[in-house]
């Protein structure tokens, strides 16, 4: 057991830290220190600017091979980069759904031609990918999808019909990946195909709509006889095989639940900020003689949140070690999404309680709280996650 970083890793960290500090300041300055939410039209452009900066610095997807736009960083370096990224206050990654959800699937199932075309453009924020999973009647129950893709051999492609929804940042993206029913007679998880869809083809309409915090973070995507040519993506628009969509997609949702979506650095940074917030508010309260301003019980909750973030960091180090040494993480990954999503709510709720009556004002904590509330819902509700953990890890009977 050795929980210290190597000199090389320390150098990687220091380099990333310096780069982030410098480039984040430059980016903010370029936008007059007025950075909007990446889920608004204007803010999205600002964030694209940042994504291009990341790409130019080689930090858009640190763990990818250089040929695809990464820097071939180890899993350890990736963890370090995530720590530094959130410690530095790096903004949300508007390319996230492509880089963290689609890309692992492309690495696993894509042809070399698909990989060559898709990944680098994704890292460079040239193609912007959104996720087309949910439909109005298929949320948690993903197998009940009804969006259809009908084969048109004459034209060499697929005709798409139906509707996707809850598509994060769909209003601002250029491409969609998702599941379509290619066998009209199939039911549940059979006969589905994983398709890659440029959103500028005729017959596709995208309508953004407001998330809980007012950001236009969601979109509905309507397909009305939209023609998806086989060569709309070099290498083809089908990822994996026709009719193989379910197993291909499951690989993606497993990325979504697992470590790659929400690295510990995000939460340890939030926890550290919560500790700082409490320290400042407590000092101010003591200074002003207003003993009511910060509840004495809050310190315990602040520490609790900090410890849980630390536990997540440590549990991830175990997972990455096991992974690096070829052992299966096994049960471990089943609990990860439950842990970080509940932790995120806990950290933000505690912060709002530290802030008191003024917590309702917009700011990083109230914004973050609203976002955190979505954690137990997206990427498979926590109720579903608990079922899965109980059945797959503990072996409890399905029903």
């Amino acid at each position: 057991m050795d929980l210290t970083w190597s000199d090389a890793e320390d150098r990687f960290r220091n380099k990333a830290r310096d780069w982030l500090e410098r480039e984040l300041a430059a980016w903010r300055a370029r936008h007059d220190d007025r950075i909007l939410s990446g889920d608004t039209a204007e803010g999205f452009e600002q964030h694209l600017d940042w994504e291009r900066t990341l790409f130019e610095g080689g930090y858009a997807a640190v763990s990818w091979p250089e040929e695809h736009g990464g820097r071939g960083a180890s899993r350890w370096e990736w963890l370090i980069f995530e720590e530094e990224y959130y410690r530095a206050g790096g903004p949300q990654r508007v390319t996230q759904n492509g880089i963290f959800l689609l890309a692992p699937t492309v690495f696993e199932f894509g042809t070399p031609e698909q990989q060559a075309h898709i990944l680098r453009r994704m890292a460079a924020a040239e193609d912007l990918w959104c996720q087309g999973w949910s439909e109005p009647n298929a949320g948690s129950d993903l197998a009940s999808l009804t969006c259809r893709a009908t084969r048109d051999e004459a034209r060499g492609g697929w005709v798409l019909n139906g509707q996707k929804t809850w598509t994060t940042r769909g209003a601002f993206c250029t491409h969609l990946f998702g599941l379509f029913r290619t066998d009209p007679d199939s039911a549940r998880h059979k006969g589905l195909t994983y398709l890659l869809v440029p959103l500028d083809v005729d017959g596709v309409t995208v309508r953004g709509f407001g998330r809980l915090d007012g950001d236009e973070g969601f979109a509905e995507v309507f397909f009305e006889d939209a023609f998806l040519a086989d060569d709309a993506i070099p290498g083809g628009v089908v990822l994996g095989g026709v009719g193989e969509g379910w197993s291909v997609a499951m690989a993606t949702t497993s990325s979504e639940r697992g470590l790659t979506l929400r690295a510990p650095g995000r939460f340890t940074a939030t926890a550290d900020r919560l500790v700082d917030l409490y320290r400042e508010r407590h000092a101010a309260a003591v200074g002003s003689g207003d003993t009511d301003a910060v509840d004495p019980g809050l310190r315990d909750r602040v520490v609790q949140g900090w410890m849980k973030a630390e536990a997540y960091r440590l549990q991830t180090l175990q997972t990455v070690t096991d992974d690096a040494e070829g052992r299966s993480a096994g049960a471990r990954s089943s609990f990860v999404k439950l842990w970080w999503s509940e932790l995120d709510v806990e950290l933000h709720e505690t912060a709002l309680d530290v802030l008191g009556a003024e917590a309702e004002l917009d700011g990083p904590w109230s914004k973050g709280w609203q976002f955190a509330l979505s954690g137990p819902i997206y990427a498979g509700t926590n109720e579903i996650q608990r079922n899965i953990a109980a059945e797959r890890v503990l072996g409890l009977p399905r029903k």
Partner: protein
Amino acid sequence: MRFAFTDDQLAFRDAVRDLLAKECPPEVVRAAWPDGTDAHGARKGEGARADPDRVARSWTALADMGVLGIAVSEANGGLAMGAGDWVLLAEETGYVALPHPFVETACVVAPLLDSVGDPDGVVAELVAGTRQAAVVPLTGSLVPWGDAVTYLLLLDHRPSVDGPWVARRVSRGVALGNEQDEQRHLASSIDAGRHVVQLGAWASKSVVGHSDDAAMAFDRGALAVAAQLVGLGRRMLDITVDYVKERRQFGVPIGSQQAVKHHLADVAKSLEFAAPAVYAAAWAIDAGDDQASRAVSTAKALASDAARLAVRNTLQCHGAIGYTVEYDLHLYLKRAEALSRAWGDAAWHRRRVAAALGI
């Protein structure tokens, strides 16, 4: 011993409920949300002002019914009723997320001024609905509906939780008149429908009434907000129960899933036990009970926690649909979250109960 409302009280509640169902459906709450974007570039309000007058009408309708003068003496044109009467109405204004300062105007300021001889001569206007009041308690800075109120009161206790209370009227700045509209810049709040203005400097310190009057005003306000939180919790529960009965996943209504049932049973349970604490505090105020403040704090703490549990569990039971501004749930959810910390959060009120229990 009789712990129930009178038939008259319930009939009045029902009349107000009917009125609010008609005058303040979700689209009216929605219309109260301002247009434009917040500091993050998000559009909170949707400008759904198909009939903007309806926002105003939901207030004048209450005035026409006499509700705004419910706690004012007959001499000043009111109904001279007590907390036992208005607590149910406050709950109803919570249920509909009424976009007006009902608590502040009808439950706090009008009765306070009425009881100290109407020194500013504004009680009639408050009762008539032509003037709205706001209150900033506990060294806060947020003035709800601060773009419209024309009477502002600060309520505080000095030097600490068990010090004497004082009510101070703000006579310049935000308060009394709206000639300085440019200063009334709306703060950006998660509950934008409450039109919160952040109070900077204020000009006058004139004291209204005695310490006991101020303490009573605070208790009335905290109680009325507690009642609103119970109403908000019930609304969120009702919306969610309807949804989970209809929404099907995996071939069954999601409301047949045990996890959903347990989430919502917990919300209903919390509200079931918070409500009597709220009603009992209303009685304690009316009866002049010497533990009235303890009863109010018990009510506010339980109601705040019940409402926050409702926020969490009802959103969770909806899944993604609840997480959008197009769906109505958020209107009530954000109001509940904001009010849970207004007029003292649950922990503050538990500290006050602790002091009353001598620990």
